[in-house]
């Protein structure tokens, strides 16, 4: 059996910190955006924090992930620096993409994050390619492709999975099923009881887990990653969760009910995890308070430092297109 995260002081604290970082980071983004201090578009994953937290806990630093338009959580959970992330969103030269990518393109190759992606399912075949590369180079690295339920309508999803299954590549397709692709209900869209039934069509294992439970996501990912590392090929995981906010700022939430949103707010992964950790004895209330306070302080200083950084420069736009 896997480690019980909530019973292990270090892991529990780290997991809780990751969830708080994601939550606080996105609250800050929302606030900055609301006050007109940030531009562009934004996709918040508030409510979904347990998925990247649990999944990345099962990964090594040099394992790869590909991420999505709703990618802050993946990025943070894989180990990125919140200051450089915030700097990117604030269009600063010190941002991960020098202010050229913004929220939808943050990548941090140092921690194996090959990038958020503005294209739904764009990262799926890229993850397959990273896994192919790992296999060819013999490094035992694994790639996890985070994606939404909506992404499963794309041909890119299909082709990425087909190749990975044929070559038995070390890749995990991790679907964050937050019940909607923009306004399209995944239940209506895919005609399936659970999205993990899709895996049967590719001859790969598929499993559905509670995406608001760090342990459940961790366990499924760990099993998949272990299998992948051992040469056992790809796995599909469906993690059921919910986004509290609208798809993006233009969302009027007409396609779902207040009740549904409230019901899922009641399943907030953070207090859920805290309660389990308290019960298991992994964390005391003081630990929990300390984690939350530390994250708040860390985030506050990340925002401040990001704000103080120089704006992105237009100097070398033309020469930055091609690598040398």
């Amino acid at each position, binding site marked *: 059996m896997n480690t019980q995260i909530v019973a292990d002081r270090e892991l529990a604290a780290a997991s809780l910190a990751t969830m708080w970082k994601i939550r606080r980071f996105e609250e800050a983004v929302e606030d900055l955006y609301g006050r007109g201090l940030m531009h*562009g578009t934004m996709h918040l994953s508030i409510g979904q924090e347990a998925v990247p937290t649990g999944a990345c806990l099962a990964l090594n630093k040099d394992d790869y992930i590909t991420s999505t338009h709703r990618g802050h959580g993946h990025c943070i959970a894989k180990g990125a620096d919140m200051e450089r992330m915030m700097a990117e969103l604030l269009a600063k030269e010190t941002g991960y993409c020098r*202010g050229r*990518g913004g929220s939808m*393109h943050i990548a941090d190759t140092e921690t194996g994050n090959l990038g958020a992606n503005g*294209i739904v399912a764009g990262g799926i075949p890229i993850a397959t390619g990273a896994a192919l590369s790992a296999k060819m180079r013999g490094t035992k690295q694994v790639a996890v492709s985070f994606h939404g339920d909506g992404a499963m309508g794309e041909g890119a999803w299909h082709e990425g999975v087909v190749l990975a299954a044929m070559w038995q590549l070390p890749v995990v397709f991790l679907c964050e099923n937050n019940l909607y692709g923009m306004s*399209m209900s995944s239940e209506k869209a895919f005609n399936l009881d659970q999205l993990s039934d899709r895996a049967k069509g590719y001859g790969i294992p598929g499993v559905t887990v509670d995406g608001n439970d760090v342990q459940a996501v961790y366990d499924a990912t760990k099993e998949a990653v272990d299998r992948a590392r051992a040469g056992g090929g790809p796995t599909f995981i469906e993690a059921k969760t919910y986004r509290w906010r609208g798809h993006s700022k233009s969302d009027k939430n007409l396609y779902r009910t207040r009740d549904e949103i409230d019901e899922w707010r009641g399943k907030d992964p953070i207090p859920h995890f805290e309660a389990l950790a308290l019960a298991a004895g992994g964390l005391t209330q003081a630990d929990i308070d300390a984690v939350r306070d530390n994250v708040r302080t860390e985030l506050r200083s990340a925002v401040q430092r990001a704000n103080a950084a120089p704006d992105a420069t237009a100097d070398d736009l033309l020469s930055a297109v091609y690598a040398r």
Partner: protein
Amino acid sequence: MTIETTAAQPAAAPATAETVTMTYSEAIRDAMRIAMAKDPAVFIMGEDVGTYGGAFGVTGELINEIGPDRIRDTTISELGIMGAGVGAAMTGMRPIVEIQFSDFTAQAMDQIANQAAKIHFMLGGAVSVPMVIRAPGGSGTGAAAQHSQSLEAWFVHIPGLKVVMPATADDAKGLLLSAIDDPNPVMVIEHKLLYKTSGEVRTGDIRTPLGVAAVPREGKDLTIIATGVEVSRALEAAEILAADGIEATVVDPRTLKPLDSDTILRTVKATGRVLLVQEAVRTLGFMSEVSAIISESDAFGYLRAPIKRLAGLDIPIPYAPKLERASVPQVEDIVAAATDLVRKW
């Protein structure tokens, strides 16, 4: 290709027509509503076009008026949607396919270029594909490189497609209604920044013909040819230039394919100087073709100056607002380039 051309006409609605002020976005919706009321074969299909009202709100509440059968929400499957459009168009329907961002036509390129565009010719004329693709293009919203492209050149390069780029609310309505009438696949590239702009729009079941350029302003010193969001920038620039004694003709091709080259050549001959303005990246953008057409025509002999292009930088659109703005021609760039052209030559 035989291009239907007529004499240039002003972009504004004829004085006689009844008009009402509405946004570009409302004008598009109005066109679709009119077409759907008239012809049961017309329907809309795309991601979030139903209850959500469209990523840019263009379909709005049409689903409440017309119902989910004809305002059809799809999965996120651009290639499938486009192909479903082709199949429906070949069998008696007149689909309007909405693609959320024109950047995602990349996903659907096979059905657009290899199927929709070629079927009529390749199948010997036995069948046609009367379908409309609506897709917003352009930068200016901070959505970065994968959501801000101006890809019209890809489509203009494909025989069998018609390509439309409305610059005003009235044209957005009139051209779309013409596109829906047309028995061929028509790509309508709307501009995100124009959706909320307003204009006088002719009421009722009106048309702006495909293949006829608009000349919203005439002047003797130079001809500015611009498309999409650059049309309004060119007109603004023309005002500023006029204050400085430079009189510009402004031409908006409106339909990039078929192209009204007669109007272009006529106005170029009249001024002898040309400034081409596009938002798309410079290299092999639409204006490259306009330039080539001018310099292989008899208008060549009338040119007093080299043909000047003003275009987006050859870069992916960056996220940072200042960088994004610097990436595409702005009013001041047009003023500067025009002044330079007139003063130097």
